[in-house]
């Protein structure tokens, strides 16, 4: 019982209770460390609300999810009807369902904007690399959560979407078909798949998500938040050790975030009550038809938040792989003749490029076009087919995000102090991301295909070439203190 704090004799009952708790659990200490004495930069702008909005949406999804699970039946014969039961017979069931489906889309809107803020202000740079990595892991878990959740209504889109995505895993060489069998629990998507996806969606992935979100916030609080100027506020502290440009999170940002939450809820509720299907983007029309394993709907598209990556998958054709092989060759040539890395490195680059070109199927295409058909057919030079590379590219598009802290070699963190053309580059990236997204929701078409291929190259070029382009240009001097105008 050493070091027990004792409340003064004229303390109120509340104070005495708090002292009792504090002697056994660090309640006041935690509150001070993470709220009332946690200093956040005072120049946060609207891009900084999306973190707490994401937390709000997570809580909302969990609560609405719990109430949905009270009535939903994870059995392929009963699932679709149970969702209609929730919509029609359960008191207020329709509202809880729409809150959950709109919440899923809202989660992705908020998370994409949250990630973009990091690109704008360099919030992924040192010392926040691990914070960013936790965030990318959350993004991956979120995609898994959305995917497993989408199978549960057991509509046409649910079934065929799951079928396609599980077959993606079957495209992996050697282990693919067995892997797909393991995921499905059966030879086709069926009751076994539904039951295990239910287990993943309701408990496994949410637990992982909650753990990762906790890690994400702890990592943030360890280093402190970045800000729109990219200035480290901890560098300038006052005589009391507190950052001069910092304000306590509580009450400033707790109140600020309540306002942001209210604006968000207005927009969110407008959608829930007046347009929950959102033109077929949030609740796809085909999903109001029960799953039919014998007939695929005419127009298959994943839910809107997966469409950019889906576009990249569809864009990867033999032609695309030939272009990629050419680019690899070009990059190798440039590296060997321009980078002056020494003969050992040059040899390694040449060998690696050669191997990649073979694997991409570029060697096969080259040999066929030269008329050496026999050689082209040999298994040594055949490489993997475009179907496999499509899956790889889709996966790589997400995984490349993990490497952003090391790809970004810009001497300044925030876009405010970068040359103007960096902003244009960002605009091009965003434009193509949206274009890929739009094209992914449409049926395939000739011009659409070309634009998707260009978009895929722009997306990967933006990241892979970042160590080079982020160093180019003249940078404005970064101020020592944040730019803030009282308002």
């Amino acid at each position, binding site marked *: 019982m050493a070091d027990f704090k004792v409340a003064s004799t004229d303390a109120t009952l509340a104070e005495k209770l708090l002292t009792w708790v504090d002697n056994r659990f660090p309640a006041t200490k935690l509150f001070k460390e993470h709220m009332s004495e946690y200093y956040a930069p005072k120049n946060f702008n609207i891009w900084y609300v999306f973190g707490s909005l994401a937390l709000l949406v997570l809580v909302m999804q969990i*609560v609405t999810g719990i*109430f949905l699970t*009270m*009535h939903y039946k994870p059995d392929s014969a009963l699932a679709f009807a149970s969702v209609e*039961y929730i919509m*029609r*017979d*359960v*008191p*207020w*069931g329709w*509202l*809880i369902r729409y809150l959950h489906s709109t919440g899923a889309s809202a989660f992705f809107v908020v998370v994409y904007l949250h990630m973009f803020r990091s690109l704008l202000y360099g919030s992924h740079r040192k010392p926040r690399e691990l914070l960013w990595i936790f965030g990318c892991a959350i993004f991956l878990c979120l995609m898994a959560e959305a995917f497993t959740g989408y199978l549960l209504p057991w509509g046409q889109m649910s079934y065929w979407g799951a079928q396609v995505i599980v077959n993606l895993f079957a495209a992996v060489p050697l282990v693919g078909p067995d892997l797909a069998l393991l995921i499905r629990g059966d030879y086709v998507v069926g009751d076994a798949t539904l039951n295990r996806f239910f287990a993943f969606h309701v408990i496994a992935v949410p637990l992982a998500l909650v753990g990762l979100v906790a890690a994400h916030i702890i990592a943030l609080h360890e280093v402190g938040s970045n800000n729109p100027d990219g200035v480290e506020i901890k560098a300038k502290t006052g005589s009391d050790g507190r950052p001069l440009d910092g304000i306590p999170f509580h009450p400033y940002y707790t109140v600020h975030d309540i306002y942001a939450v209210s604006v968000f809820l207005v927009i969110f509720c407008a959608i829930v009550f007046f347009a929950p299907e959102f033109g077929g983007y949030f609740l796809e029309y085909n999903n109001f038809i029960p799953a039919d394993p014998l007939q695929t709907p005419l127009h298959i598209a994943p839910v809107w938040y997966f469409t950019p990556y889906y576009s990249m998958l569809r864009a990867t054709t033999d032609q695309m792989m030939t272009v990629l092989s050419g680019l690899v060759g070009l990059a190798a040539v440039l590296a060997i003749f321009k980078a002056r890395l020494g003969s050992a490195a040059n040899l390694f680059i040449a060998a690696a490029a050669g191997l990649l070109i073979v694997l991409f199927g570029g060697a096969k295409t080259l040999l066929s076009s030269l008329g050496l058909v026999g050689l082209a057919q040999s298994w040594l030079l055949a490489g993997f087919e475009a179907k496999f590379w499509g899956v790889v590219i889709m996966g790589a598009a997400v995984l490349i995000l993990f490497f952003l802290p090391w790809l970004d070699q810009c001497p300044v963190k925030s876009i405010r102090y970068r040359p103007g053309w960096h902003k244009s580059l960002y605009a091009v990236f965003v434009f193509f991301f949206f274009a890929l997204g739009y094209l992914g929701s449409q049926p395939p078409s000739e011009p659409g295909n070309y634009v998707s291929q260009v978009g895929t190259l722009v997306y990967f070029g933006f990241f892979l070439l970042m160590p080079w382009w982020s160093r180019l240009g003249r940078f404005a001097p970064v101020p020592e203190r944040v730019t803030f105008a009282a308002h």
Partner: protein
Amino acid sequence: MSERPIDDDKRTWLIAASCAGAVGAGFAAVPFVASVQPSERARAAGAAVEVDIGTLQPGERRTVEWRGKPVWIVRRTPQQLDSLQGLGALLADPDSARKADELTPEYARNPHRSIKPEVFVAVGICSHLGCSPTEKFQPGAQASLPDDWAGGFLCPCHGSTFDMAGRVYRNKPAPDNLEVPPHMYLSESRLIIGADKKA
């Protein structure tokens, strides 16, 4: 805890905003709490049941399911009806006065506990712990029954006994008479259980 003077305006706004938030939270909670109540499907499943008793013979008992529970319809013989008198001292609640609103609707507050004297309708669940009693219409001494047994029901779980009007005997584990459900006659031979003129 702080030396600053109290900012009354700020305090007013804080309290006002908190009240508004609490009201909002209350409204938001309503759909969730309401959703755990019985759904339309559950209520439909609990709807009234129609029974045709045209073929029910005197001394015969029929059982139908209403709201997941067995409901007995017994066409009592004149002897069985006579046996109801004179049992007063042996019964715990001969006038069905206890929990009358729950167990005995107005039209059953009479010596035979039914609308028509010869047709007895009751929920076949013992008022002790919920088992369904067995039919013991034969008067006279039998296993687990007294020598002067007048006919009625015996609950196999803990030995409670009921007479031909579902009234519980004294000194038995069951405290109350059998419940008479809401019911009414649509015609001489058609009976509806779960709905009555009051509803």
